[in-house]
């Protein structure tokens, strides 16, 4: 990675860090082992940020979708879907690259040296479709139809899959709150196992959770091709050197599609382009 690109990456990490600190700025929660209960939690944050994190000051959009769909009186979620549609239509997956705390964690984990980092593998492209299945099945269909006698569905994605919830909410809350120690069971063990696998994979593969599992990334991705702010390749300036494709850690080739569903708008391609052909 050249110096220019490295500087851009650290600038991005600074913004990711500042945003993560801001959206998890309820410091009393970390001291008391409680969560913020103020009115700001009416609002969703754009990234994957568990609302049961002791510091969280906003609501996780994926958790909020499941909460509304799974409630007995609503079966469609206009508020959160509208929020995600607005954010996606304006900036596509920019949120994934710049404003998601769990994206930042994976970015930093991938900086840990490992003998053999994996950039791609057989079945990689097919496996990336999995996040759409996770979105439809665990975030929408199960909370909507697999309900209790009161007509309420559980947040199945949060309950069985989300490693962000375990890292940001589960581990700190259990550590800080003694009353929860006795409630730990197989589900907690399962979620910690998933978190451990995610952490290990993040060291050898760039952002595996974002690529293969994240339902929020799946939602934002469909807006990438049509968002107001998006990349454009100037074909007159482009020298077809493929530098942009080589630096992309999400394995997107901007020459083929500058607004690919997998592009997280990190800006590496734009910064690395020797001909300044990407705008």
């Amino acid at each position: 990675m050249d110096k220019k690109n490295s500087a851009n990456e650290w600038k991005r990490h600074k913004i990711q860090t500042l945003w993560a600190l801001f959206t998890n700025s309820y410091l009393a929660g970390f001291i008391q082992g409680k969560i913020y209960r103020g009115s700001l939690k009416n609002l969703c944050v754009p990234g994957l940020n568990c609302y049961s994190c002791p510091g969280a000051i906003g609501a996780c959009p994926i958790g909020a979708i499941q909460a509304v769909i799974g409630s007995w009186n609503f079966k469609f979620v206009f508020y959160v879907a509208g929020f995600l549609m607005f954010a996606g239509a304006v900036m596509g997956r920019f949120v994934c690259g710049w404003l998601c705390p769990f994206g930042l964690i994976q970015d930093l984990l991938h900086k840990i040296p490992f003998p053999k980092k994996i950039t791609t593998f057989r079945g990689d492209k097919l496996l990336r479709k999995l996040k759409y299945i996770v979105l439809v099945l665990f975030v929408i269909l199960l909370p909507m139809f697999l309900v209790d006698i009161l007509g309420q569905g559980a947040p199945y994605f949060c309950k069985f899959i989300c490693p962000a919830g375990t890292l940001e909410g589960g581990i700190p809350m259990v550590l800080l709150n003694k009353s929860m120690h006795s409630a730990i069971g197989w589900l907690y063990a399962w979620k910690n196992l998933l978190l451990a696998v995610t952490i290990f994979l993040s060291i050898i593969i760039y952002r595996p959770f974002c690529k293969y599992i994240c339902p929020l990334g799946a939602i934002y991705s469909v807006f990438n091709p049509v968002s107001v702010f998006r990349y454009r390749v100037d074909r007159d300036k482009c020298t077809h050197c493929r530098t942009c494709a080589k630096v992309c850690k999400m394995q997107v080739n901007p020459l083929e599609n500058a607004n690919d569903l997998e592009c997280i708008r990190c800006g590496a391609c734009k910064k690395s382009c020797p001909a300044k052909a990407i705008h």
Partner: protein
Amino acid sequence: MNRPPHTPRMGICLAVLGLLMIGFGISRGEMSVVLEKAINICLECIGIG
């Protein structure tokens, strides 16, 4: 990431539709469901419930 020369009509329409959906969702009380879920420790989310 600059604005392309052609007006991204689809993106603007979807953004406006998103805002309308936010307003409609708020008007029918979805925000209170989000708040109620978010201000209580979600035991399922943290792997306990």
